[in-house]
């Protein structure tokens, strides 16, 4: 069956792949949106943290026998702690300054992380085997779906849903949102705002690392894996609206699908389509699709 001259098999296959990529974008931009939306930090090291999540996973597997399943929980914790250390030692000095300084600092941190891993492991990539339980695949008719990739979609979307729910619907989330808008007031109410801020950064970082663990069996674990993604993820967050959790999730998934479509029609443009969309969206809706006007 053909739609516009393209076989439906090809189209559906690419859309499905797009959905898988979109899930990654969603989780990554979620972490970034949390960090910016709630903390006003422009976290340019997000890609590097994603990469470190994949590497910690790989090192855990090859050196310590840490299984993939353990890794899904442990790696975000480990990297999250690292994030907290970064926040305490470095980032907190920048809160009173222009946002752009946090961008520059985190960019520098990303360079350090990528440089260190590059020196230790080279850039040709390390292999992370798909866990046994998820090997093989199902024939969906229009494509053969590797089980692991299906799992990625499920895991990513679940995490996104849980996070969104926590922030938007629970009292913890409400406290967090209040703390960003009126920190002194919330502090006065007896809540330790700095601890909240630090913990939130940790959560954002943990989400990036979680995406890294999910990604490890899919792409080669290499030091540059985050560098290629970071600007795309930023674009997603900006389009979604920089503070909006829902915006980043929806835009992330949407972008994955749009990219998939582009790959069918004009593959070379798939890397750049997001930026075209970003320019258009920012011209029409300056605060992003779901953003609130400052």
């Amino acid at each position, binding site marked *: 069956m053909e739609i516009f001259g393209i076989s439906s098999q090809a189209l559906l296959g690419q859309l499905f792949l797009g959905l898988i990529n979109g899930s990654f974008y969603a989780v990554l931009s979620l972490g970034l949106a949390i960090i910016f939306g709630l903390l006003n930090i422009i976290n340019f090291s997000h890609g590097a943290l994603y990469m470190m999540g994949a590497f910690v996973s790989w090192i855990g597997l090859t050196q310590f026998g840490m299984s993939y399943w353990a890794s899904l929980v442990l790696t975000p914790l480990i990297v999250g702690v690292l994030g907290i250390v970064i926040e305490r030692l470095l980032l907190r000095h920048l809160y009173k300054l*222009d946002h752009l300084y946090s961008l520059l600092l985190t*960019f*520098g941190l990303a360079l350090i992380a990528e440089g260190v891993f590059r*020196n230790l492991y080279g850039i040709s990539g390390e292999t992370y085997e798909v866990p046994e339980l998820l090997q093989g695949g199902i024939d969906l008719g229009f494509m053969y779906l590797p089980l692991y990739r299906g799992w990625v979609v499920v895991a990513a979307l679940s995490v996104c849903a849980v996070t969104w729910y926590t922030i938007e619907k629970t009292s913890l989330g409400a406290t967090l949102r209040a703390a960003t808008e009126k920190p002194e007031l919330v502090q006065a109410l007896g809540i330790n705002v700095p601890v909240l801020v630090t913990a939130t950064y940790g959560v954002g970082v943990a989400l990036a690392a979680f995406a890294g663990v999910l990604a490890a069996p899919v792409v080669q674990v290499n030091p540059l894996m985050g560098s290629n993604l970071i600007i795309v993820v930023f674009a997603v967050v900006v389009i979604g609206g920089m503070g909006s959790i829902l915006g980043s999730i929806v835009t992330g998934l949407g972008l994955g699908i749009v990219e998939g479509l582009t790959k069918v029609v004009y593959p070379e443009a798939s890397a750049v389509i997001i930026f075209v969309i970003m*320019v258009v969206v920012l011209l029409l809706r300056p605060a992003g699709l779901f953003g609130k006007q400052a």
Partner: protein
Amino acid sequence: MKSNYAADAAAQSRRTVLMFVALAVVGLLAPFALYPTFLMKMLCFALFACAFNLLLGYVGLLSFGHAAFFGGAAYVCGYLAKEQGWSPETAILAGTLTAAVMGWAFGAIAIKRSGIYFAMITLALAQLVFFLALQLPFTGGEDGLQGIPRGKLLGLFDLSDNMAMYFFVFGVFMLGFAVIYRTIHSPFGQILKAIRENEPRAISLGYDVHHYKLLAFVISASLAGMAGATKALVFQLASLTDAHWHMSGEVVLMTLLGGMGTILGPAVGASTIVTLQTQLADKVGSWVTVIIGVIFVVCVLAFRRGIVGELTALRQRLTGSHS
């Protein structure tokens, strides 16, 4: 504290002359002591950083897409020199004009916003340029535009001789630097400063702020393009690295390290980074990236005024003067 205005102004212009003379002397003598190609690289990046600083330090806009001008001009200049046989000065001019037009287009779109949104829009537009650099046939894609001839300056001076090329590049740098200097120390520059310090006030005074920002953007973009076009001729190569967003990040670092908002800062920052990259690359290989990252972090945390900024502050403290 009473100050003698006329004396201060005289002192300022004496310092200016001194600065230009010092630059000229150092620049003219340097190639006899150091490897000219390395110096030319320094000069190109110094010009790039100074051009970038015009926008960041003096207008307060952080562009994350300047690589588009640098790289775009490099490709245009390289193509015209190689495939169309243009002479070096016309090719560089063409590159500069291309960057100016791109700057005008970018600026028209991006200047409506500020802060992170401005940065992201410039980044997005630069990625579009990168995409073109990758896909258009004349750029050579991943292979880059290779074997760009240096040609004969004005039909007379053969630039394949490194020394001749050096003096030409030095001339280009001084020209660009003079343009930036003049822009800053002019009524136009004063208005830019006013806009940076208090934009609502400038608007209320009746200035068309958008127009001023756009003009500054175009100047910044053109000179960044001039630097890129010149670099393409120096190395006889234009490649995707020149238009990649990492290049945009590098120029931010150079400016930050040297001192945003100072006239010499970016040049100092650029020279330092280029020196580090060249000297360290042989010794520590890819640890260079890590070192540069550390410098970035340190600068942001403790060294925000940059080398020149800190030195100026030091001088002021020691002499107790204000200039």
